[in-house]
């Protein structure tokens, strides 16, 4: 189980291979967030950010079968097309892998202390938090039972 907050880029296939070693693994789901058309600076809270992600990971592990996972979130100066975040989950079945991946991303967006500052031609501005992100995270609180609807 790897959690990393780093300035450096990452390689999806390397990370997926790393978490797929367990012979019980039957499904790996991954998400990569990418910078759209505006360069940005990502600020974080060293220490708290890593701890917040680890708490989200523990919550996910209590809800779904997770054999291994990796969460990488970058900070610093990022250009359009750059990778920002990776979440990849290895599980026995796809239902757990998909659900845990989406859960971790939804919680990252609302719980992990990162702040985006976009560099537009007319000047820099801090990105405002979206209510839709809060709603996406709140959705999971209503689900009391682990979601294991699909078997791969």
């Amino acid at each position, binding site marked *: 189980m790897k959690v990393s907050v780093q300035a450096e880029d990452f390689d999806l296939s390397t990370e997926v291979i790393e978490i797929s070693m367990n012979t019980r693994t039957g499904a790996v789901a991954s998400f990569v967030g990418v910078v759209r058309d505006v360069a940005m600076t990502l*600020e974080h809270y060293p*220490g708290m950010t890593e701890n917040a992600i680890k708490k989200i990971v523990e919550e996910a592990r209590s809800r779904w079968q997770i054999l291994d996972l990796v969460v990488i979130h970058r900070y610093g100066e990022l250009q359009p097309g750059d990778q920002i975040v990776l979440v990849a989950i290895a599980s026995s079945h796809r239902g757990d892998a998909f659900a845990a991946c989406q859960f971790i*991303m939804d919680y990252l*967006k609302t*719980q992990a*202390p*990162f702040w985006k500052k976009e560099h537009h031609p007319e000047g820099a501005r801090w990105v405002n938090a979206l209510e839709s992100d809060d709603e996406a995270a709140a959705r999971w609180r209503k689900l009391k039972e682990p979601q294991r609807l699909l078997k791969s």
Partner: protein
Amino acid sequence: MKVKVLLFANLRERIGTSAEVVEIPDSASTVAGLRMHLMRRGGAWQEALADMKVVRVAVNQDMAGANAPLNPGDEVAFFPPVTGG
């Protein structure tokens, strides 16, 4: 008692500092008390911390509410709602 105040993102920019050790009276030893103490400085402090709908607080790197108690040496961070991912 003394606590360490940290500011991030637009709060850091508006107030113009990222960290400061602040002496607060024992009677102000909650998150809300510290906030009022800082706002009484006026200027950017007063403006930046006025609307708690757009300010989050962490005490010793855990999210905290207004009533959270403070102890000497605590690290108290003020920041806007997060926008990572």
